[in-house]
């Protein structure tokens, strides 16, 4: 089904700039109007400039390690009953897909003549990528991170500091990703002349959702070609985890117009959809404005934003990028949810069967495929799954929260005498 023939396609009025159907827009304080217009102009100019594309390609290839491989995971496939092809974003520089977006926006920052970037981070992946690009481009860098996430993701905090970034723990609200975004927005409002807010997901006010989608679409630009070359034909489904939704929108982008390929976003269900401790925004949320755009959000009847819960610091966000809301409502993509338990199982099996320690975020996608792939997609279905990041950062959290017994105590001689 293509967007053009979709009966639920938006009206002409809803196709106004910055909107995906009814979702998107730019709900921000007037003080940011200038910076958003400047960013939109810089982006338009960059897209027409061959030198920008060339710089971006060179950085992605020589510095970032692209293209990332598409790998047929045989043992995982056997366990899942479907054929799993992993798109290995975990092998890219900094260990996740986040650098794809960051190098592009860092180039834009340079073109706008701004000396400073700020970023929000949940799991720390985007913060590390931003700190990396800031070091590479000689930019000042401040990263806002919820105090709870600072605790959960210590390794990434140290990495950011090594790269020269200032990490500011955020103690307000739920002390997680949404509060880090609020604080980054406040910094931006206050320092907008010299600062670019390097948003890490396909969310926020226009033009961010479009810019991030375009920069992350390299994932599916590669995967469409790789799948055709390595496997032949079309996959039955493309699966990716969804927090704000940057790796998912990049993984879907080139497949959206391809008929017959299912697009499946896996949200974090925490302790379960309906448990009150979940981050499954599209499954449980309603239409509302959060962080500058209209999308689907976990809010109560009053519009107060509800805390999201997930074992993964990168997915416990109560909103989702507006294009995902549009894809969900139009039916082009399907959004499902994996619980903490399913994600831990995905984590464990990916380690044991493939020798890959995945980040907890894509472990949700693996967990869903293991638990539901065969039933939902059919025996032997061919699935491209984006392994959006590597899991070194999550090892402590998995041991602590999941009670995942890997015999660490025994190995260090702390077990029985």
């Amino acid at each position, binding site marked *: 089904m293509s967007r053009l023939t979709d009966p639920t396609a938006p009206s002409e009025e809803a196709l106004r700039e910055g909107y995906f159907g009814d979702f998107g*827009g*730019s*709900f*921000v*304080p*007037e*003080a940011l*109007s*200038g*910076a958003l*217009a400047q960013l939109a102009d810089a982006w338009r100019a960059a897209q027409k400039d061959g030198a920008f594309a060339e710089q971006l390609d060179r950085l992605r290839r020589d510095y970032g390690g692209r293209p990332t491989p598409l790998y047929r995971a045989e043992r995982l496939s056997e366990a899942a009953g479907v054929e799993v092809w992993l798109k290995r974003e975990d092998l890219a520089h900094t260990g996740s897909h986040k650098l794809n977006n960051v190098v592009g926006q860092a180039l834009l920052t340079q073109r706008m003549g701004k000396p400073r970037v700020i970023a929000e981070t949940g799991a720390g992946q985007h913060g590390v990528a931003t700190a990396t690009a800031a070091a590479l481009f000689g930019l000042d860098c401040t990263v806002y991170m919820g105090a709870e996430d600072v605790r959960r993701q210590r390794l990434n905090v140290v990495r950011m500091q090594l790269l020269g970034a200032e990490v500011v723990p955020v103690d*307000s*609200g739920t002390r997680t990703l*949404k*509060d880090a975004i*609020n604080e980054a*927005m*406040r910094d931006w*409002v*206050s*320092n*907008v*002349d010299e600062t670019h807010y390097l948003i890490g997901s396909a969310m926020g006010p226009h033009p961010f959702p479009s810019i991030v989608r375009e920069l992350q679409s390299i994932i599916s630009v590669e995967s469409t070609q790789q799948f055709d070359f390595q496997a032949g034909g079309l996959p039955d489904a493309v699966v990716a985890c969804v927090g704000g939704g940057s790796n998912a929108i990049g993984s879907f982008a080139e497949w959206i117009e391809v008929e017959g390929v299912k697009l499946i976003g896996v949200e974090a269900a925490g302790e379960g959809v309906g448990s009150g401790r979940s981050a499954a925004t599209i499954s449980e949320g*309603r239409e*509302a*404005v*959060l*962080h*500058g755009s*209209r999308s689907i*959000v976990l*809010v109560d*009847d*009053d*519009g*107060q*934003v509800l805390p999201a819960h997930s074992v993964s610091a990168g997915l416990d966000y109560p909103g989702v990028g507006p294009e995902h809301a549009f894809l969900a409502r139009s039916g082009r993509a399907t959004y499902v949810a994996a619980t903490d338990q399913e994600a831990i199982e995905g984590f464990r099996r990916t380690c044991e069967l493939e020798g890959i320690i995945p980040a907890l975020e894509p472990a949700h996608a693996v967990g869903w495929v293991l638990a539901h792939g065969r039933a939902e997609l059919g025996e032997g279905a061919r699935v491209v799954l984006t392994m959006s990041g590597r899991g070194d950062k999550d090892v402590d959290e998995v041991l602590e929260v999941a009670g995942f017994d890997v015999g660490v105590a025994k190995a260090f001689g702390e077990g029985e005498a």
Partner: protein
Amino acid sequence: MSERVAAGPTAIQAAFDRAKAEDRAALVIYLTATYPDTATSRACMEAAVDAGADVIEVGIPFSDPMMDGPTIQAANQHVLDAGRSVSEQLAFVADLAHLDVPRLAMTYVTIADTRGYARFADECADAGLAGVILPDLPAPEAGPWLAEADRRGLATVFLASSVSTDERLAAIAQVSSGWVYAAGLLGVTGVRSISGDVTQDLVGRIRAHTDLPVAVGIGVKDRASAAEVARYADGVIVGSAVIRAAGEGDPDGAPARVHALVSELRAGVASR
């Protein structure tokens, strides 16, 4: 449901006209609804009016107030932690009808949008409010809300910033009613002090597009800064300093502290 027109813009204009007739700027005071508790909040609103506030902005708390600094964030969170719903806050507002000054709701677009603009406009008008301020609703996104606000005679005050282009200022002036809110600095509430020259320039640029009163807020905190702004603006808006007076210290003393501060501010706006 009553469909009486609240005539908000007219009431607000009258308040600014009265101040102008006294050769001073109007004083607009922000207080968060039911902060720190319902009784104290009501007494603080009364104290503010008694001490000379011409207009009251009543904050309806939102969980993620992007434009607010630590003081108002904490006040918002305090009310939310106490479990008071938006309906309860609006009932509290409706109970302020005895205050003889126009009152406006100050909240975020998520609150109005989740309720539905039509219902929110009805509830605001029925609570006796003269208007609404939504700092994260920029003019280009405002159409659907304005239709409902106009239907109920509510004013909608829009914010202008020193970074707004002349084209945007024209759009803001076009959709604003009651007054135009000039941000006194690039930043959130209650953190920095006003940027004088930049703000004065902004007020002048706004006046090129409208005859509406122009009031300056964000960064005004005491008598001296109120007097400074009153030299060139039609109104002076103070929020975080008042919230600190209301919230810091013994609740029993809050109305007296608010009264003392607002008296000072009132002297400030009159001494231009």
